[in-house]
C-alpha cells in the first residue's frame, strides 16, 4: 500500500464519520457546518484522485457558497420565527 492509498483510506473513514455526524446533529447549524467540513475534506480526496477541476469547483461551491446560503436561510427563518412568537 502506498502512502496515497493509506491517506485516501483515512480520509474516507473521516468522511463517513462526518457524514454520520451531519445526519444526527441536534442543531441545524451544526449539521450545516459538518456538511461544510465534509466538502472541504472531499476536496482533498478529489485532489488525491487526480481530479483537480472537480476539486476547485467543490471547494468554491460546496464549502463556500452553499454553506453561506444555508446559514443565511437558517438565520432568516429563525428571525421570522422570533417575530411571530
Amino acid at each position, binding site marked *: 500500500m502506498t502512502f496515497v492509498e493509506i491517506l485516501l483510506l483515512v480520509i474516507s473513514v473521516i468522511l463517513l464519520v462526518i457524514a454520520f455526524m451531519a445526519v444526527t446533529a441536534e442543531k441545524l447549524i451544526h449539521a450545516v457546518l459538518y456538511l461544510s467540513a465534509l466538502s472541504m475534506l472531499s476536496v482533498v480526496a478529489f485532489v488525491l484522485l487526480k481530479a483537480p*477541476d472537480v476539486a476547485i469547483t467543490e471547494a*468554491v461551491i460546496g464549502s463556500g457558497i452553499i454553506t453561506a446560503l444555508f446559514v443565511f436561510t437558517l438565520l432568516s427563518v429563525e428571525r421570522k420565527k422570533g417575530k411571530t412568537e
Partner: protein
Amino acid sequence: MKKLVGFVVSLALALVIILTLNESALFPAFGEVDLAERISSQYFNLAQFEAVGSANIVTAILAGYRGLDTLGEVTVLFISSIGVAFIMAEQTRKRIELDYKANFMLRTGSRLIVSLILVTSFYIILHGHLSPGGGFPGGTMIASAILLLYLADEEFRSNIRGFKILESLAGTFIVVTGLLGLIFASAFLENFLPSGTIGELVSGGIIPIIYILIGLKVGSEISGIIDHFLSEEETV
C-alpha cells in the same frame, strides 16, 4: 435506538454496494480504466493539434467540443436565478440585519481580502484553458467576494442593476460568439480563431473568450442570488 437502526441500515447498504461493485467489470479499480472505452478517443487525438489548442483536456471538452452543453448549463443557472428573483423580489427591500456589529478591523481587513479573492478568481478564469478551473469556479469566487463584503459591512449593497446588465451582456456575447463560429467556420460555437501555441496565455482560440464571458455571467448571477437572500421585505 433510532441511531442504531440507521447505523445498521447504512452498514447493510454499504455492504450491498461494495459487494456489487467490487471486482465488477463496470467498476474497475482506480487508475485502471481504459479511457478509450469511456471518452471518444477523437477528443484526445484532436486536442493535441490545432483544432482546439487547450492544454487542459477537461476545458477542451467542456468549452470546445461540448460548447453547446455548457451553454445549456449556463442557461440552467440563468433560469434558477430568474426563479429566485421571481420568488423573492419585492419593490422595497432592505438589507437583512445581522446580529453582530462589524468593527473597523473587520471592515478594512475584508476589503483587502476581497481584492485578493478577486485577483485569484480572475486568474482562475483567465487560465481556464491552461490549468484546472475555469469560468464556473472563477465566477463563483467572484460571488463569494461579494458575499464577504455583505458580511463585513452592514451598509453594503451591491449594484444589482449593474449585475443584471452584465449578466445579460455576457449571455448575449456567448451566443454571438457561437453564431460567429457558424459564419466563419462550419458549426455553432466552433473555433474560428487561430489557436496559437499550446501553453501560452493567448491561445486556444475562442475558449478563453467563452470562459471569460461564462465567468462574468456566473459571477453576476450568483451575486444577484446572494443579494436576494440577504435582503428582506420592508416592514413598515
